[in-house]
């Protein structure tokens, strides 16, 4: 069960956190009935009249030049309506598109959708076919003849950095992140990043204990249960409609417009309900090809990926090689820290090495530090965001070194963290200082927890702790609120709902107007029906779209006050909105009543709100894990799990707990079992849910989520994003727990049974 730990608020202010009427309650989500009855329409449930079906031909090679593509046999098959290759996508040249949460080299995105001259990973899309039914489309795809010149694949990040490594992209040069300087020869090293603070040498000279370690982590996938799907109609008037489950309808619109060279105004994106995203459903994989096939066939085209395609060809998160060196003085204060990090970008550049480099030491106050990071291309699918992208790999490495230092110091890990913890004003290695944040509060919550106070009882049992950080994002959102004649409100918003967010948005709106959550009807609508809204990602929706909803409610307050003053014939300065009521000199009328009155006396009441605020505050989490390690098999069982996280203000605590629990379990999978297993030809051998095994309910105990509330001063309701940070601590905490249980250090992820057993046997001999 979860507990809410209301911390003392701003230090020295003496204020207690405000109490709310709707915020903090647990209403049933508005889309609940649809979701539990099977009525909700996810991407593949969408059927458009006259729809035909697409299939994609994918590369069997990890690295090859495309010599020729012959589609004639496919086109000749009865029932085949269109075939598409990269020849049907315009060449984007050098253009870089800004997508709100980052930029993308359009040439790479285009080639990733349909390979132009080279294939860069097994599963890379080469051609697409549309036919009367899916089976025919698949048969036809297999009739397309592609001649490849197979090249040696490079599958390891360190090997890819060597001068002798085969180069994936001849156009890629090493770019120095801060200066923009580019190297002069083709390389797999796409980017180099450096952060420095203080005097590293001096810092290490002052250290009493120093630990230096190397780490490797494997490629892992977001693992959303719903595969990618896109349905496209290129209408007879040139209007393109895309129905797709996505984390960003406006992002998809822009990507499709850019890749097809059509004006933005001609593209409309309709969100289907989405079966999980975690960052992996932002880039487009199918929509451009589906649109082209629709244009060529004159019919709507639906393309669905199967699980193998999803694993082999959609952006996982990088595997990595990381070196950490950290020094502490005799009291346990960190004097210096150094990191060297290489992240796999997959076939095209763009790993989250920047974020990784900024997060690696983010939990600690480091006086002297240096971080060096590399973005490296390898013959694996182009990586994409996965919940706090870049942070989990880094935290695993740093927290393990911290755990070793604690052992040298004879210091309790939680106390080490309390001593060195980042707090308001701490300056990160990248130079930015923190606003009010709650890492210390999460550590104290863990220390005060029942879990922490309960001793372990068995042999081969161990306990570990880990902390993590994520920035969270602000970006842009827009909301429209129409007041119905009965005083209820329809709320239109553009943030696709991957976790119950439409209710959290409705709750903030209701709170502001003094209504009940049930009075609000939130809808996620298409790109023509609401103002521009950035992606559902970066833990931003409750913060940013919630703020836009707050603004829309404020807008309605102003309108209602002005119209009531008119109606009552009083000076507007004497009318105000308080606590869900319009209050005049001698009257106080609740929103519903005044709305009903106004609907008969004047114009409709429509409110709107926008948000472009960027003070998301950042989020910290600390996890405590008890494990039992079987010394004969190396299997790690989780006995008990407690996660404390600073959530600002928990709008809907059940869904906040859900984010903590869900993220923690993804981190558990990352830490204990998930990896992409490649053979020497660069073929993924476990591209299915049996062998790429994500945690099942049988692998886990209950996950206790402790919601710590250190309100974010940068939001009207103190909201902090909660979605991403919970995936950061688990592998780190698991490593410490395994060491505590059986005395072996794990420097590689996943810490799967064969690896743990290997270390145990090594230790014995």
């Amino acid at each position: 069960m979860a507990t809410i730990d209301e911390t003392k608020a701003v230090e020295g202010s003496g204020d207690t956190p405000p109490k709310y009427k709707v915020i903090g309650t647990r209403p049933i989500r508005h889309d609940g009935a649809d979701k539990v009855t099977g009525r909700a329409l996810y991407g593949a449930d969408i059927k458009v009249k006259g729809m035909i079906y697409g299939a994609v031909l994918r590369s069997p090679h990890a690295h090859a030049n495309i010599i020729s593509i012959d589609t004639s046999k496919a086109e000749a098959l009865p029932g085949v309506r269109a075939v598409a290759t990269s020849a049907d996508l315009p060449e984007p040249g050098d253009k870089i598109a800004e997508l709100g949460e980052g930029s993308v080299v359009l040439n790479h995105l285009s080639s990733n959708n349909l390979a132009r001259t080279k294939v860069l990973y097994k599963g890379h899309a080469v051609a697409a076919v549309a036919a009367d039914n899916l089976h025919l489309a698949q048969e036809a795809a297999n009739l397309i003849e592609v001649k490849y010149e197979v090249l040696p694949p490079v599958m390891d990040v360190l090997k890819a950095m060597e001068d002798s490594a085969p180069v994936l992209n001849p156009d890629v040069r090493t770019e120095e992140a801060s200066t923009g300087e580019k190297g002069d020869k083709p390389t797999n090293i796409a980017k180099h990043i450096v952060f420095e603070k203080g005097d590293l040498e001096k810092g290490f000279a002052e250290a009493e204990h120093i630990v230096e370690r190397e780490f490797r982590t494997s490629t892992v996938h977001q693992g959303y249960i719903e595969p990618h799907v896109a349905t496209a109609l290129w209408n007879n008037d040139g209007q393109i409609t895309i129905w797709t489950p996505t984390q960003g309808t406006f992002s998809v619109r822009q990507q499709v417009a850019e890749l097809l060279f059509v004006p933005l105004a001609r593209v409309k994106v309709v969100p289907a309900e989405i079966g999980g995203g975690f960052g992996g459903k932002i880039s487009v994989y199918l929509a451009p090809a589906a649109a082209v096939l629709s244009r060529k066939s004159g019919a709507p085209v639906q393309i669905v990926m199967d699980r193998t395609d999803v694993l082999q060809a959609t952006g996982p998160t990088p595997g990595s090689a990381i070196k950490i060196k950290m020094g502490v003085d005799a009291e346990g204060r960190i004097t210096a820290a150094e990191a060297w990090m290489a992240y796999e970008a997959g076939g095209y550049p763009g790993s989250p090495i920047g974020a990784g480099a900024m997060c690696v030491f983010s939990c600690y106050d480091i006086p002297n530090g240096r971080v060096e990071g590399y973005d490296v291309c390898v013959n694996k699918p182009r990586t994409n965001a996965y919940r706090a992208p870049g942070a989990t790999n880094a935290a695993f490495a740093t927290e393990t070194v911290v755990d070793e230092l604690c052992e040298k110091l004879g210091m309790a890990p939680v106390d080490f963290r309390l001593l060195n913890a980042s707090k308001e004003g701490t300056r990160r290695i990248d130079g930015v200082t923190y606003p009010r944040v709650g890492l210390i509060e999460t550590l104290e919550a863990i220390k005060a927890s029942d879990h922490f106070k309960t001793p372990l009882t068995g042999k081969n049992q161990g306990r570990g702790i880990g902390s993590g950080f994520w920035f969270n994002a602000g970006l842009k959102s827009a909301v429209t609120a129409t007041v119905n004649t009965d005083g209820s409100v329809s709320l239109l918003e553009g943030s696709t709902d991957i976790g119950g967010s439409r209710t959290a948005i409705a709750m903030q709106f209701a709170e502001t107007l003094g209504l009940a959550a049930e009075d609000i009807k939130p809808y996620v609508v298409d790109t023509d029906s609401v103002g521009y809204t950035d992606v559902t990602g970066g833990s931003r929706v409750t913060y940013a779209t919630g703020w836009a909803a707050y603004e829309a409610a404020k807008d309605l307050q102003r309108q209602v006050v002005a119209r009531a003053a008119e109606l009552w014939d009083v000076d507007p300065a004497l009318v105000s909105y308080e606590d869900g009521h319009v209050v005049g000199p001698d009257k106080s009328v609740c929103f519903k009543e005044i709305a009903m009155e106004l609907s008969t006396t004047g114009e409709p009441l429509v409110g709107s709100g926008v948000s472009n605020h960027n003070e998301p505050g950042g989020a910290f989490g600390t996890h405590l894990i008890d494990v039992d390690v079987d010394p004969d098999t190396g299997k790690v069982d989780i006995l008990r799990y407690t996660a404390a996280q600073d959530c600002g203000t928990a709008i809907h605590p059940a869904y906040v707990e859900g984010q903590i629990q869900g993220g923690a379990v993804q981190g558990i999978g990352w830490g204990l079992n998930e990896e992409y297993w490649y053979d020497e030809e660069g073929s993924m051998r476990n591209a299915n849910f049996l062998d790429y095994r994500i945690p099942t309910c049988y692998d886990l105990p209950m996950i206790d989520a402790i919601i710590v509330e250190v309100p974010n001063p940068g939001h009207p309701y103190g909201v902090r994003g909660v979605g991403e940070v919970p995936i950061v601590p688990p592998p780190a905490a698991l490593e410490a727990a395994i060491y505590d249980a059986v005395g072996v250090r794990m420097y590689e992820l996943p810490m799967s049974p064969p690896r743990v057993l290997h270390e145990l046997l090594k230790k014995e001999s």
Partner: protein
Amino acid sequence: MPRLFIPPLLRPNCEGKEEVVVEGATVLEAVQSLDQQYSGVMDHLCPEGKLRAGMSVTVDQNVTPRGLAQKVAPESEIHFLPAIGGG
């Protein structure tokens, strides 16, 4: 007066300083002020007065969506950092 934090690889161009006091009411003006003190730095930081793709500007503690146009206060800190994407 605002302080502009210098990325490590540009510090040799700025006499090794980690931060430089600059003048200006916007980030762009601050960079121009830096360039007046250390000629040529602007070419690296924001060539042609534009923010490079993949870079973001943080003023004080927050990434600003306005990039170089963001107004800065006398006590502001200005940082140039990689753009971060969430998931």
